[in-house]
């Protein structure tokens, strides 16, 4: 709340700076009859930037530093027997103190916690007053400085444009920072996990049961963490999904691009787009509500024993979800095949289907394979359908009627619910996340490479 008000106040001051700067530039120019270097509004922006940027910088640094500084000072102010506690215990005490500060009605039972809480509340009070003061000073001084520097000769536009440039270049690094953030956070937590469970056991272990202690010597972890059953489960469901999505998607793409007229295309395309836009949680609900019971009943009627959370139900639904993905990517690829190849085939007397099979598909094959790889990577990373329709128990099986579990399902089940952040269970989720990230990244990189090379060939 306070931050919002402060933010708005700085913005208001910056607006004042804009008006003052612009006015001063015009006034000076009018008085001295010297031509301004830039448009008057640039002098306004110049003053506004001088006002806002330092203040925002102070706010940002303050927001990052304040909790750490206050925590350190609080710990320093407490009696030595608490300060010398091990870090885990100390953080529990800090949590108690923070709770006492934030929910004033929770009465702190221990006197030292109460004292520390009061200390902390006082420091927070001081800090917020200090922040307001520092921001006001920075904004005010920046405003005066910026307005004061305005002369007709000042290259205001160039200065403002430098800021614009830096902001744009800065924004473009956020995508990189995101990737680095993903890799670092996954790696960091995974390394902690591999301290508890050896990498070899994780990658090649045949048993996944994170809940129960399996071996007596496994003191650090609470169960066994072999990822193989999860990987096979994921592959099984992905294969089923691909068995649905690839033929249906590919054939509809061929039909749409080679056979269908403009009218049929303009009817079918929006429907495929709707199918592509349906959230995955809706597919999950559909799988659990309609597809799974149907498959179970159908299996029972022909004498098969089908689990109610069968891999088939999840895979089938995931296949439906991926149909539009495969079809639109293949559609692009098929349309990119030059018309001259088709004309040549027709001139040789080939029928349409012969042209498609012997000329277009071979020419488009790399692109189609790339599309399928991207679809596979999407199927592997898909979460909600399998969370809602696939099982939780890790079975090492390739029977599509049995219940299997996947990497993403396990990530969700390990992390949803209350569990401490440092246990092997939560860390295992990050290791699975790393596994998922690496697999999908490899698939994506290969697919994007293929697409790029292929695109260059026909352009």
């Amino acid at each position, binding site marked *: 709340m306070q931050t919002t008000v402060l933010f708005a106040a700085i913005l208001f001051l910056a607006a004042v700076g804009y008006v003052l700067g612009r006015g001063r530039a015009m006034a000076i120019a009018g008085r001295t009859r010297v031509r301004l270097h830039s448009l008057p509004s640039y002098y306004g922006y110049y003053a506004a930037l001088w006002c806002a940027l330092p203040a925002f910088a102070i706010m940002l640094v303050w927001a*990052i530093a304040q909790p750490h500084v206050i925590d350190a000072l609080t710990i320093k102010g407490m009696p030595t027997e608490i300060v010398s506690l091990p870090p885990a215990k100390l953080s529990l005490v800090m949590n108690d103190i923070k709770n006492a500060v934030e929910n004033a009605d929770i009465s702190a039972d221990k006197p030292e916690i109460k004292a520390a809480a009061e200390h902390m509340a006082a420091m927070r009070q001081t800090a917020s007053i200090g922040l307001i003061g520092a921001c006001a000073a920075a904004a005010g001084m920046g405003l005066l400085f910026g307005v004061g520097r305005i002369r007709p000769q000042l290259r205001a*536009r160039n200065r403002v*444009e430098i800021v*614009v*440039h830096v902001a744009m*270049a800065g*924004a*473009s*690094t*956020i*995508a990189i920072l*995101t*990737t680095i*953030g*993903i890799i670092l*956070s996954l790696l960091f937590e995974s390394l902690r996990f591999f301290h508890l469970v050896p990498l070899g056991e994780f990658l090649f272990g045949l048993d996944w049961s994170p809940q129960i202690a399996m071996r007596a010597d496994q003191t650090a972890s609470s169960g066994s963490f072999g990822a193989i059953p999860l990987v096979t489960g994921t592959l099984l469901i992905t294969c089923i999904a691909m068995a649905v999505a690839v033929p*249906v*998607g590919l*054939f*509809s793409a061929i*039909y749409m691009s080679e*056979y269908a007229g403009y009218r049929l295309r303009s009817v*079918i395309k929006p429907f*495929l787009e*709707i*199918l592509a*836009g*349906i*959230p995955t*949680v*809706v597919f*999950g*609900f*559909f799988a659990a*509500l309609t597809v799974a019971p149907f498959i179970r009943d159908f299996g029972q009627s022909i004498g098969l024993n089908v689990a109610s959370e069968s891999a088939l139900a999840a895979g089938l639904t995931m296949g439906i979800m991926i149909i539009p993905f495969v*079809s639109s990517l293949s559609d692009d690829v098929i349309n990119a095949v030059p018309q001259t190849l088709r004309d040549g085939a027709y001139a040789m*007397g080939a*029928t*349409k*289907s*012969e042209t*498609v099979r012997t000329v277009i598909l071979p020419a488009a094959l790399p692109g189609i394979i790339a599309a399928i790889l991207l679809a596979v990577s999407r199927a*592997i*990373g*898909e*979460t*909600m359908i399998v*969370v809602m329709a696939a099982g939780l128990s890790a079975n090492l099986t390739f029977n599509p009627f049995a219940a299997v579990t996947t990497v*993403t399902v396990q*990530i*969700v089940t390990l992390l*949803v619910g209350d569990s401490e952040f440092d246990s092997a269970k939560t860390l295992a989720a*990050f290791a699975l*996340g790393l596994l*998922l*990230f690496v697999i*999908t*990244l490899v698939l*994506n990189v290969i697919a*994007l490479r293929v697409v790029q090379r292929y695109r260059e060939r026909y352009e």
Partner: protein
Amino acid sequence: MSDAVAKSAAGSPAGRARMKRRYAAEMRFRLYGIAAIAIAMAFLFLLIGSVGIKGVSALYATEIRLEIFFDPAIIDPDNTGRPSPQADYAQLYRKALLKRFPDVKERRDIADLASMISTGARFDLARMVDRDPKIIGATQTVWLPAEADIDMAEKGQINLSAPESERRVKDSQLKWFSSLQAAGDVEKRFNERFFTSGDSRQPELAGIWSAIVGSFFLIVVTATFSFPIAVMTACYLEEFAPKNHWTEVIEVNINNLAAVPSIVFGLLGLAVFLGFFGLPRSAPLVGGMVMALMTLPTIIIATRSALKAVPPWIRHAAQGMGASPVQVVLHHVLPLAMPGILTGTIIGLARALGETAPLLMIGMVAFIVDIPHTPLDPATALPVQVYLWASNPERAFVEKTAAAVIVLLVFLIAMNGAAVFLRKKFERRW
């Protein structure tokens, strides 16, 4: 196919047979294509149909009409003129029901009878009294929500031919209910509560308003973070950036980021925003920031193609008039590309609106009754609400889930419709 080829091929019997085979293969191939499209369409209609049929019934809720005597002895025992905070409003409808069915005497039967009315009816009655304390001591006709199992029975979603011990509605309750029905005291009315209240453990009281508000905050946060960053990135890469290794790395990186599974972004949010920066769990602010990172590549790619579509002579003309490179982009190219950018942004935000998995990671799966007021309050989002209700074993939540799906789809269709409208209305072909 040329006539000469056809003639020569049709000349010999073997040629004729071959032609026949080839045409048959052609027909088969065509049929495969039609079948594929038909299968895709059939799945789409099956999905929407099955969810739609299940969900429509949640728009109506069974309500029961009772003559409620607002007994001063219960509401205001100390005769202060104001309702007592300890007043047991359940007594009011319990007494009204007993008056309606005077021959119910046994304790168990009385409990069964009272449980036909939702426990949420207490709050309705309390609200009535709060709004108008003058009704204390008066008798009023009030429609009260029926309990979920009664509602299910009324909607025909409970198999009443099953033996009594295997279903959740008792024979005695059905008897009372049909006598109420015969007297015209039962009606299916528009379920306003579903659209105005938060989540609840009682299916008949559960609503999606808190999830809608949570989704709203989420989308607003996502848009405020992702739109400016994406547009600046795209402008930089498309208009200003030198072509060197660094910009190539950024480009490859953006393309890869677009295909990273959404759950990985959730893990990033958990480790960085919650773990490292210590932001609050379950808050739409964090969810929105994660979604912003997730939608960033989509919007960047859309913005870049919109910028590419602006013809170069616009830039040349502006430069010729003495505009600086930044002015060329900000004053001329960007405004012309805006419809395309906004279309891409809306489509990206629609994806974020339907996304669930990252929100599960950052704890937006809590049971939220209160309506969130700021992006820092704990909240759920519409798709998460769908997930939560779908995993609830109670039968009555199925129709709620389906109805929430319908609401979600309506929002998505509205957003995509807006995107299509923008594209159709403002797109310029050069």
